């Protein structure tokens, strides 16, 4: 069938429509399913996602912080904490949409069961990613609570970090779904964590300003999604909010959408033969 050429819409949009035309609000039913399951063991889950950033906060913030003193004029622990909210969101979403989604896609055949209903494949992928974003949000919230107990929340803007945690969650959930679509087995994820997530964690400016790095590494760092999250988060926590965070926000949004479209395509390739 040939498409009428007179639709007059740019090719990118037409392509997007063909790819995502099957997306609907039914995505939320998949999201709801995941929440429902999570409420059964949320304690273990929150603790798991919170554990690591919390340890970093204590070890680095207190231990290393004593040696470092201040960074850019603020105590090290205050420099560090906003970044850890971002990494907590990243880890939560990534675990969910790698190990979690992979299990639902393969071993449990959950996707297969859902595909027998009016829920489309696009809805399923979107639902999983929404859930990943939600996990990011939940981890971010837990982290924010802990930080406020430590007296590290001094700016009203910091509340917006929860929205940021959700966005970071969406982005990494989308990226993870691409990896999940390509993963032959669970072992594959250990490569992803070692080669992608760990460098992300270390070089996105959580532990030291990106400007400390040599020029080429700074460029590299710009391509890490987490760098932009950390930038925004730090601005929110210090209260030094300026227009530059909109550039970061745009970066995160554009790449989330991009990763999501690729994720849909890759999952389709994997399960619709």
């Amino acid at each position, binding site marked *: 069938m040939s498409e009428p050429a007179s639709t007059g819409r740019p090719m990118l949009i037409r392509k997007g429509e063909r790819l995502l035309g099957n997306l609907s609000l039914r995505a939320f*039913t998949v999201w*709801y399913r995941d929440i429902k*399951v999570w409420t059964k063991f949320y304690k273990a889950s929150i603790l798991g996602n919170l554990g690591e950033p919390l340890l970093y906060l204590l070890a680095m913030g207190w231990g290393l912080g004593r040696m470092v003193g201040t960074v850019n004029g603020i105590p090290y622990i205050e420099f560090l904490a906003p970044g850890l909210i971002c990494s907590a969101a990243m880890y939560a979403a990534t675990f969910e949409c790698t190990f979690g989604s992979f299990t639902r896609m393969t071993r449990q*055949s959950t996707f*297969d069961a*859902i595909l*027998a*209903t009016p829920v489309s494949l696009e809805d399923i992928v979107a639902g999983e990613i929404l859930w990943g974003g939600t996990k990011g949000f939940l981890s971010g919230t837990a982290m924010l609570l802990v930080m406020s107990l430590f007296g590290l929340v001094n700016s009203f803007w910091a509340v917006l970090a929860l929205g940021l945690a959700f966005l970071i969650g969406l982005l990494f959930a989308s990226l993870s779904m691409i990896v999940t679509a390509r993963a032959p087995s669970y072992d594959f994820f250990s490569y992803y964590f070692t080669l992608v997530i760990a460098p992300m964690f270390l070089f996105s400016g959580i532990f030291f300003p990106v400007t400390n790095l040599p020029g080429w590494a700074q460029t590299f760092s710009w391509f890490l999604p987490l760098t932009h999250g950390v930038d925004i988060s730090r601005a929110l926590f210090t209260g030094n909010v300026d227009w530059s965070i909109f550039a970061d926000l745009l970066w995160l949004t554009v790449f989330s959408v991009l990763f999501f479209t690729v994720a849909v395509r890759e999952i389709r390739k994997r399960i619709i*033969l």
Partner: protein
Amino acid sequence: MTTVLSASDLTKRFGSFTAVDGISFNVGKGECFGFLGPNGAGKTTTMRMITNHLPVTEGSLSVLGMQVMANARKVKARIGVVPQENNLDTDLKVLDNLLIYSRYHGIPMKEARKRALQLLEFFQLADHVKSPITQLSGGMQRRLLIARALINEPELLILDEPTTGLDPQARHVIWQKLRQLQSQGVTLILTTHYMDEAQQLCDRLVIMDHGRILIEGSPRDLITKHAGNEVVEIRLRDDEDRESCLDAIGGMIPEGTEVECSADTLYLYSPDATKVLTGLALDSNRTILHRRATLEDVFLRLTGRDLRE
């Protein structure tokens, strides 16, 4: 009779391998239509095209008057699917499996709860509302799987091997429920490896092999046409025995009888077997079985006795 499903030259290829090779069939409203065939015949592939899980490579497939895939959501809203592999949601308890599934179908919560409880009652699972899936027996899981497929009150129910691996009690319960559904006007399409199941349930059936349909018809007609009325099975001791046996009965085989040799058995498909039997009765220490022809005879004659991978 209105047509619920119509396939013509339906083909599915995986890469260069043809799993379903240009099959055509129609299913009328309220019918129970069966698919028989050895492992790898293409039954599941056909079912998964009907359920919109797999895109059609060639040919046309219309379900409830709509082409599949292009109308995936609309078709799926009106059919029920019982897959070959159990895919109940093991993260959820019994009732929640049905309730969450209702959400996928967009059924309002109150209505969903009502239907779910009715279905659990109907399938004798009412005592297990709160059980985890892993605590259910195989038979209960199958029943729950069928219950789940009915939550949207489908007009057409697709069942891929609904009773495989179940004990006789569980199978009979499922058969009875399926007949009850059929009497309520639900159209059934099922695949099975059990000939008695096909004979019990199916109004019409096809036997498939290597992606093609070999024959189509009602169980009774197919038996009469392809296996005669009666079968005599003569167990053989060795190759030599086969020859002597064939010699012995050579003159007594009535007209219209067909003889088939397998590894250790001689099969005589005959309109009248008494003649053969009287002849053979002389040799008393031979194992001889005289029985009515069944669908299994038709199946084996058409698809051969070799094992499939």
